[in-house]
């Protein structure tokens, strides 16, 4: 009989027989094991699922496994990466440790020992210190002490043993997956499976089979019966990440699952009862998606039994020092460095910045700084290097900012700053400003930047009249209030 569930593993090795052995051995030891035979397959898995640990072979035939390491470290930061090596390549394995891998495993290691090594790094220790704020939540990876964070923890405490569907709402990078995981870990389902599926990353034709499973012969490639992820997690928790991107055809089927608590595998007529706790997450405005016909209204109401809003980092800036400390510790360990906490002046900059990419952006900035800094302390330039684009420099530099200093506000607020400063400009000059700045940003941030500028512009024109603003925007008043909250805009400032 398999042991208790230990997590989801991805094995990346080009030898199919080696993979088959590890899959059997580690499945017996309680892991859900996926296999990838090259780096493209690996990237595919990492984008679709939440993987607890990756066993990455150094030599993938015509590819170098180490080339996949930076991708794993940046795209799947919660995954622990173990380099698989035969005995002759220990030096390379050590190099891998210095570049983000958690450990290395030689291929002659017995499966029990491999499982123990993985568990040592992926399981939550019982005796973790509680000084990171959040008490019980610090133990499961949530860090903070601010009022917004405490309120969030309080809600999670109330919800931990309730089976109702929870909808996590928040901007990209606010840590929705970490929160879903934490909720599972503190719940009475903690010994059962937690799985996360990225609805945006799985092709529509595969998603149905992934969710509901299939019977042998149901379609060309269905060689054997396969359980779907909903059934596999029957007593555990399943996170539907990016639920707003789920195809409409599957939304109807998911609705039925949530209503009736049964799944019917593809090609089967027999429904299977499940008790899966469902958490859904999205960075999209689901009401907007409903209004535009891209998301079913009935599913929205079914999912949003308990909506939980995850505050953006700019609304919990008091947590930044704790988060910085935690990330520095993590990356010191990962990259074998001894970087100290930033000086007070650097920390002030960190707190002043808006972090439009939220905790993910902060984490990436710290990682970059820990890797790049030449000394044992982090400089401002190491942290904000990605923002040193000529057009990102605010138009009005304060006298104490040197040319090399980073902007103190986000690209998003920079983009909107000009409009704010010059409220009577013509629409053509607004367009010029948008052209000039927004095209420097990634798409998500560009959309947000435009949305904020658009809203500010309407509020300027209407003198802060919400009814008129909502009429001109063709949206409900509630939507406008939500956008005001999202972009931290105060209607009084436009009156």
């Amino acid at each position, binding site marked *: 009989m398999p042991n208790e569930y230990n997590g989801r593993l991805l094995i990346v090795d080009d030898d199919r027989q080696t993979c088959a052995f590890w899959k059997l051995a580690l499945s017996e030891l309680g892991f859900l094991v996926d296999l990838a035979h090259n780096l493209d397959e690996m990237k595919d898995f990492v984008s679709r699922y939440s993987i607890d640990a990756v066993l990455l072979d150094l030599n993938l035939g015509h590819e170098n496994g180490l080339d996949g390491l930076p991708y794993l470290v940046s795209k799947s930061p919660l995954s622990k990466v173990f380099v698989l090596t035969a005995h*002759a390549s220990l030096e390379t394995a050590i190099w891998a440790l210095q570049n983000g891998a958690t450990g290395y495993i030689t291929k002659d290691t017995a499966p029990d020992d491999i499982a123990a090594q993985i568990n040592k790094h992926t399981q939550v220790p019982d005796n973790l210190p509680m000084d990171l704020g959040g008490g019980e939540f610090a133990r499961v990876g949530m860090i903070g002490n601010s009022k917004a964070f405490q309120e969030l923890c309080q809600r999670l405490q109330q919800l931990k043993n309730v089976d109702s569907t929870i909808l996590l709402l928040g901007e990209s990078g606010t840590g929705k997956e970490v929160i879903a995981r934490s909720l599972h870990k503190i719940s009475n389902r903690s010994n059962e499976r937690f799985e996360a599926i990225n609805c945006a990353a799985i092709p529509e034709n595969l998603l149905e089979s992934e969710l509901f499973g299939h019977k042998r012969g149901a379609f060309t490639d269905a060689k054997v019966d396969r359980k779907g992820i909903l059934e596999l997690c029957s007593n555990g928790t399943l996170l539907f990440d990016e639920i707003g991107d789920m195809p409409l055809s599957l939304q109807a089927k998911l609705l039925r699952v949530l209503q009736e608590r049964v799944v019917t595998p593809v090609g089967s007529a027999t429904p299977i009862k499940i008790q899966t706790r469902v958490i859904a997450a999205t960075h999209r405005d689901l009401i907007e998606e409903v209004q535009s016909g891209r998301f079913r209204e009935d599913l929205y109401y079914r999912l949003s039994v308990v909506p939980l809003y995850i505050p953006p980092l700019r609304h919990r800036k008091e947590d930044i020092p704790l988060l910085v400390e935690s990330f520095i510790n993590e990356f010191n360990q990962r990259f074998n460095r001894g970087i100290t906490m930033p000086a007070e002046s650097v920390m002030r900059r960190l707190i002043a910045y808006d972090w439009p990419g939220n905790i993910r952006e902060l984490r990436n900035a710290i990682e970059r700084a820990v890797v790049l800094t030449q000394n044992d302390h982090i400089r401002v330039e190491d942290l904000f290097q990605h923002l040193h684009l000529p057009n990102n420099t605010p138009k009005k530099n304060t006298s104490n900012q040197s040319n090399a200093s980073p902007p103190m506000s986000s690209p998003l607020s920079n983009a909107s700053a000009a409009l704010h400063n010059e409220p009577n400009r013509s629409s053509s000059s607004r367009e010029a400003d948008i052209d000039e700045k927004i095209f420097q940003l990634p798409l998500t941030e560009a959309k947000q930047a435009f949305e904020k500028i658009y809203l500010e512009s309407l509020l300027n024109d209407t003198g802060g009249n919400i009814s008129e603003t909502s009429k001109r925007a063709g949206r409900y008043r509630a939507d406008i209030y939500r956008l005001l909250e999202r972009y931290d805009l105060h209607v009084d400032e436009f009156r």
Partner: protein
Amino acid sequence: MADMIIDPIYSLYKDQPIYRDLLKDFVECLDERLVLSSKALEGQDWKDLSRLMHQLKGAAATYGFPGLAALAGIIELDSATESIEEAKIRASFQEVALTCKKIEAGMAQLLED
């Protein structure tokens, strides 16, 4: 010939029934691996030979055959150097082939028991 096989070689996992089918598959495929490697050797495709031996080394270590893994590792390194010593590689390859025969014999005996 049976009289050529002196010492059957067993997997370190021979006493664990759950691995029996996989071990059988692995041993059955040894011949295929040897044929591919032999082609690379005859064609003096040292890069491919090194790659195939690397795969065999990893798989053999995984399946509990450390001796075969070590021998494959020697050929992997020898065929990846600048100055190839073909005679040495051929001799090592013979050893690998013989070890595979011993492993097949061990597997046959295991299945009989």
